[in-house]
């Protein structure tokens, strides 16, 4: 199940296109859209119940549907909303989708570090060109001095 939300859109972007201003100056701006998604996700009593349940143990969509007396489709929708908000992660093993409580901290850190690396890499590619041209200038100056 895939619901297009602000977070999903951001994740779908190639890494280098994802918000350089946040990497450059993380404190200046932050992503409101995600926060809105998180609070929207928490505004529903069933979804709060799901989080509470997952706080005690991981559970499959089927378990959750039974527990909350809902259809599988209905539960998938709720889990989808929580997943979009980054409050829950799911993993499919065989035919069972297991849900866990989680904010994807580690993945976020790895993605941030990679974008940060790309920023410096792009800077250093430009710096390479300047180093080359300064080296050439020095060689020319050196030859002039010897003459």
């Amino acid at each position, binding site marked *: 199940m895939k619901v297009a939300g602000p*977070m999903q859109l*951001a*994740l779908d972007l190639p890494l*280098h296109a*994802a*918000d*350089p*201003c*946040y*990497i*450059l*100056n*993380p*404190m*200046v*701006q*932050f*992503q*409101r859209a*995600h*926060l809105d998604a*998180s609070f929207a996700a*928490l505004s529903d009593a069933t979804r*709060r119940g799901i*989080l*509470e349940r997952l*706080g*005690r143990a991981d559970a499959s969509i089927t378990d959750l549907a039974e527990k909350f007396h809902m259809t599988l489709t209905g539960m998938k929708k709720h889990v989808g909303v929580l997943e979009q908000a*980054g*409050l829950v992660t799911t993993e499919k093993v065989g035919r069972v989708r297991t849900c866990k*409580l989680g*904010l*994807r*901290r580690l993945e*976020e*850190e790895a*993605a*941030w*570090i*990679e*974008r*940060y*690396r790309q*920023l*410096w*890499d*792009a*800077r*250093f*590619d*430009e*710096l*390479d*060109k*300047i*180093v*080359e041209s*300064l*080296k050439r200038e*020095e060689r020319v100056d050196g030859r002039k001095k010897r003459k």
Partner: protein
Amino acid sequence: MKNPTTVERKSERELVVTRTFHGPAHIVFEAWTKPELLKRWWAPKSFGISFISCEADVRTGGTYRFVFSHAASEQPMAFFGRYIEVTPHSRIVWTNEESADGAVSTVTFEEKGDKTLLVLHELYPSKQALDDAIASGSTSGAGEQFEQLDTLLVTLVRS
């Protein structure tokens, strides 16, 4: 041939960036310390950012102020701070004062034959400061707001 750039979170408070350049240390140092040269590489075009102004008085006790425009943001972004230490051809240390939790950055240039190894070390004031910088810069994070959400979640789960 292009040299690789590496970034590693060395500890709870530190990020380290490394890169080798095909040139002597004094040339790489010059490109970091002359504003007219700095301007040509610090704001890569591929990141959609460009300099509005670039002031840098690169000597111990000097200050800098970089102002960028960015395609995705209406407001210009300003970065500023002080040079704590400038040792010609080998080391520059500066502060990042646009936020209270800004890092202290140290770049060193180590000449090896006809190459120079550059190491940029960024030390944040606390683990929280670096975590927040990462969280607020991530696609789904929002720094302090996220911390509050975490707390809220813990409360919900326990209730």
